[in-house]
């Protein structure tokens, strides 16, 4: 058995036979030509053929992978027909009396170098597009273009790199996985693999040895591993993994679009937790009905200084827009404890979990808080944003927060910056907040129970401490009673209560929560459909 490693750009398991995809060597010779005008004409004709081929590819991609991903072939058509590109080629033919193939290859190098010199990863990747369209022109001109060999059986393609035009030509049902030695996560090939829903690895250390052709191969898109000639044990493990993967996919298909309603008809809001705007895609893929916890820390942790209002506004707006009117509950910064950043200048603490963190920082340094609130309210105009505040212990804190919120709204009104009214909620994650939840419920629009911290504070157990594992009971009655009490107090005041901690995704407890009257469960995107299954099987009334 041989084992190789790469970087996964899309998960999944594929087991099949290996097919090395070799690019044809295309050496371009420089020839002197007599009649430059005729050579220009020959180029123009090749260009027209190329453009009509790209049109066909566009139509094929449109059918296979959808409009958004097919667009690249329309862009390729425009690039091939671009004035600068075409003029450069024609001028070179005319002025230097060289053959069209050579002129295309020279202009290709010049344009590719221009993109490669740009200080933007995405744009650097476009050099591949230039090579792709130029290669097509050269092959048409030299008459070396061949129809792609179609595979009889589904295969795992292993290649140096793949141009989008190559990837899309593969028959969808004949392609199990893509493995390349080069490639970037931004490449269209990676995007196409995602839309085709097949595992794809890039930057893989596998050699393109012809003797690998036809060998049995396993691609693990979760770990980024390729096994050639797997031994029986590996094969067995991976076959099980594949079966599990397919079972989950099936579950996913069946439950997508289904309502989150119990067997006896009570509706539950099933939302997802995210920590980065990039996660929105998986929220939508897993069909969550909203975002129940958007941790805003990433903005602070990925930055070397306080993120500006504009930076924050853009991030929140992007998420709100991508969710298209579905609820997005954003939690204000929860820095401190185990999440620290240098520029906050936080001091070392004896007991950081109980220290200067989250809302305590916001109420001590309101300028940081106000910047975030302004960004949140500005973004509210672009979707259904709600705001929630972490680490609350008292009614006084909530009133102080609401005072600052009012100031921010007045400022925005004065500046005539549009915003909507948003729901304001709090995290219930301290035993204190749970105990006074009857009073807190009168101050806010919703509760979201953060079971991770609530458990740690209630049981007085540090979850990072491995020695305490034996004492740690996630289903401790104290926690469950607290949740029940919080939900009851919320309902008495006419507001809703949800759970956004890890316990919310605990499949053993779904029915318990539903019976308690929990209105919302917010779980990691990958858990959404599993929880949906449990909700649909549960009974709210016993």
């Amino acid at each position, binding site marked *: 058995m041989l084992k190789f490693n790469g970087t996964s750009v899309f998960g999944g398991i594929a087991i099949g036979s290996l097919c090395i995809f070799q690019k044809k060597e295309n050496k371009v010779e420089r020839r002197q030509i007599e009649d430059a005008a005729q050579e220009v004409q020959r180029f123009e004709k090749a260009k027209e053929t190329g453009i009509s081929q790209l049109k066909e590819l566009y139509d094929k991609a449109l059918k296979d992978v959808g409009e958004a991903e097919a667009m*690249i072939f329309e*862009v390729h058509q*425009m690039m091939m027909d671009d004035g*600068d590109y075409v003029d450069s080629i024609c001028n070179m033919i005319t002025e230097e009396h060289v053959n069209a193939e050579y002129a295309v290859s020279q202009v290709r190098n010049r344009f590719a170098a221009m993109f490669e010199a*740009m200080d*933007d990863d*995405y744009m650097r990747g476009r050099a591949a597009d230039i090579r792709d369209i130029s290669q097509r022109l050269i092959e048409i001109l030299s008459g070396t273009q061949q129809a792609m060999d179609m595979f009889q059986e589904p295969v795992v393609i292993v290649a140096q790199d793949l141009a989008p035009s190559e990837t899309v030509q593969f028959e969808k049902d004949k392609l199990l996985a893509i493995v390349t030695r080069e490639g970037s996560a931004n490449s269209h090939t990676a995007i196409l693999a995602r839309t085709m829903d097949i595992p794809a690895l890039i930057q893989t250390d596998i050699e393109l040895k012809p003797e690998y052709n036809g060998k049995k191969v396993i691609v693990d898109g979760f770990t980024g591993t390729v096994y050639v000639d797997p031994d029986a044990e590996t094969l067995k493990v991976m076959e099980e993994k594949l079966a599990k993967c397919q079972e989950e996919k099936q579950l996913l298909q069946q439950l997508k679009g289904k309502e989150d309603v119990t067997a006896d008809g009570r509706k539950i809001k099933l939302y997802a937790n995210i920590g980065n705007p990039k996660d929105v895609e998986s929220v939508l893929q897993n069909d969550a009905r909203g975002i129940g916890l958007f941790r805003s820390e990433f903005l602070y942790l990925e930055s070397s200084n306080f993120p500006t209002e504009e930076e924050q506004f853009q991030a929140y707006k*992007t998420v709100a827009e991508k969710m298209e009117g579905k609820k997005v509950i954003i939690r204000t910064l929860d820095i401190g404890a185990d999440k620290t950043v240098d520029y906050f200048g936080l001091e070392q603490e004896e007991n950081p979990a109980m220290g200067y963190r989250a809302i305590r920082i916001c109420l001590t340094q309101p300028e940081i808080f106000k910047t975030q609130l302004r960004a949140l309210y500005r973004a509210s105009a672009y979707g259904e944003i709600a705001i929630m505040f972490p680490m609350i212990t008292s009614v006084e804190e909530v009133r102080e927060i609401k005072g600052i919120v009012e100031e921010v709204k007045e400022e925005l009104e004065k500046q005539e910056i549009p915003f909507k009214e948003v729901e304001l909620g709090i995290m219930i994650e301290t035993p204190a907040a749970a105990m006074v939840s009857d009073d807190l419920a009168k101050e806010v629009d919703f509760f979201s129970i953060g079971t991770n911290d609530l458990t740690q504070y209630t049981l007085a157990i540090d979850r990072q401490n491995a020695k305490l594992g034996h004492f740690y009971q996630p289903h401790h009655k104290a926690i469950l009673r607290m949740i029940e009490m919080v939900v009851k107090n919320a309902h008495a005041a006419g507001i809703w209560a949800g759970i956004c901690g890890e316990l919310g995704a605990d499949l053993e407890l779904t029915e318990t929560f539903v019976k308690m009257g929990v209105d919302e469960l917010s779980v990691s995107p990958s858990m959404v459909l599993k929880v949906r299954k449990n909700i649909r099987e549960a009974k709210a009334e016993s």
Partner: protein
Amino acid sequence: MKTFNYTITDPEGIHARPAGLLVKEVAKFAGKVTIEKAGREVDAKRIMGVMSLGAKNGETVTIKVEGEGEEQAAQDLEAFFKENL
């Protein structure tokens, strides 16, 4: 000649797809349209040039529209930028 400034709000900037859309949009207008960023000016009808600007989120570009019907064309283009970029 009509001129307007626009600050890119698309998180990915003018990448390949929006550049394609833009070039298509500009092609509807018979006159001359240029985009300038940091002193570099390109023909908005040529996709390689538009892409080579590498205009990113938060950067400001200046669009110049010249020719018959430039008033309307500038208005349409400004709306296009707001909608797509």
